[in-house]
């Protein structure tokens, strides 16, 4: 594979990763807003904006050539794109701390993906770009960790609902 083909393949992955992260955060924000969990909805909205900014940056780097068109299952990740929030970690009663922890895990796995791509490629330009994206994700993670340090622990009764969803009959 030529250097530029490798770069295009990398950028195709980066576009998908950021686009999936943005879409998932938007989806979660809408769902939490519909369930009146406004603090977490707003946080996910801010994460969607952050991902949108990074997506725009990646798209700019990708303007030269048409990126390879891969089917969703042809990307080099085992299941979901690494920055997509996992459905298992979401709940209508989740608090801001849990939302931040989820976002932190997403940033870390995106960072790990970029760092691994940088280490595995023989193409210098791709390695440089992938490493710079890994650094950006590490910076996001650091900022999230700072915010997390200031938050109180999750209350043990967080998931207790005064008006439980289960049918009372």
């Amino acid at each position: 594979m030529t250097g530029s083909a490798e770069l295009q393949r990398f950028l195709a992955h980066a576009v998908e990763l950021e686009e999936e992260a943005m879409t998932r955060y938007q989806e979660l924000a809408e769902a939490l807003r519909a369930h009146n969990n406004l603090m977490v909805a707003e946080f996910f909205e801010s994460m969607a904006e952050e991902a949108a900014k990074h997506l725009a940056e990646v798209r700019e780097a990708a303007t030269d050539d048409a990126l390879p068109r891969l089917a969703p299952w042809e990307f080099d990740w085992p299941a979901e794109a690494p920055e997509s929030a996992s459905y298992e970690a979401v709940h209508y009663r989740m608090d801001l701390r849990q939302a931040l922890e989820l976002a932190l895990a997403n940033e870390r796995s995106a960072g790990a993906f970029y760092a691994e791509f940088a280490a595995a490629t023989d193409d210098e330009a791709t390695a440089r770009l992938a490493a710079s994206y890994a650094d950006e994700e590490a910076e996001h993670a650091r900022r999230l960790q700072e915010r997390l340090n200031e938050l109180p622990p999750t209350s043990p009764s967080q998931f207790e609902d005064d008006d439980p969803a289960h049918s009372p009959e």
Partner: protein
Amino acid sequence: MNAPLKPKDYKSGIKPIWCPGCGHYSVLNAVAKAMAALELSRDDTVLVSGIGCSSRLPAYTDSYGFHGVHGRGLAVAQGLKVARPDLTVITLGGDGDGFSIGGNHFLHACRRNVDITYIVMDNEVYGMTKGQASPTTPIDWDSSKLTPHGPGVRPFKPAAVALATGAPWIARGYSGNPNQIARLLSEAIQHKGFSFLHVLSQCITYCPEQTDWKAIVHEREAEPLTDASEAAALFFAESGFETGLLYHQPRAPWPPQHEQQPASLDDIAERLRV
């Protein structure tokens, strides 16, 4: 040439009202991704459903849709496909919709083999009506006040029933892996005949324990089985947590293609001449 449509172009402007964390979001994303990957025309694709949280899905896509009667999605979908074979017809619903009230339609849809795809979003519970046991609920699931000691009935085995009644294409996906669902769905749509895609789709609200599925669900490594007896052995013994295309044995879809063309009006007039 127009740029190919993206998955988001296959979604409607209506926002889902599912609970945050519901597995059905993942199926919606997979449907949009499969439609984009196959470049399906939104005007020639119809999503048909029954009733339930899962059955709301057609409203969230930008193609034709029919939100039908509880358990009757398959009946509508088969009629539509037979009348309009040029359309791509996808039926969706929940385990309650498809295996309880719609159970009889499920048996005969597998047997009849009309060229449609059927996705069951199985959360082992009646979500929409607030968490009662369904045919796939574990025997000892005691979270509903209606069945405080668990339903006490062995759960239904969807893949085994589909096989026994003649389904030629049987696969299983998991909401934790929407890209795999999208791949399986795109294969299902391309399969000529009835394709049954069983999706383990977690209900985070009534069955929060289903978040444990992530650790146990795994992809079956072997090739899909083509021998029905081997598939029967697998489907009776398995845990139900293996994903992938499990069984594939194509057979001619219904209605049969008769070689003899229907007689023209002139032929009939000729035959009836006295």
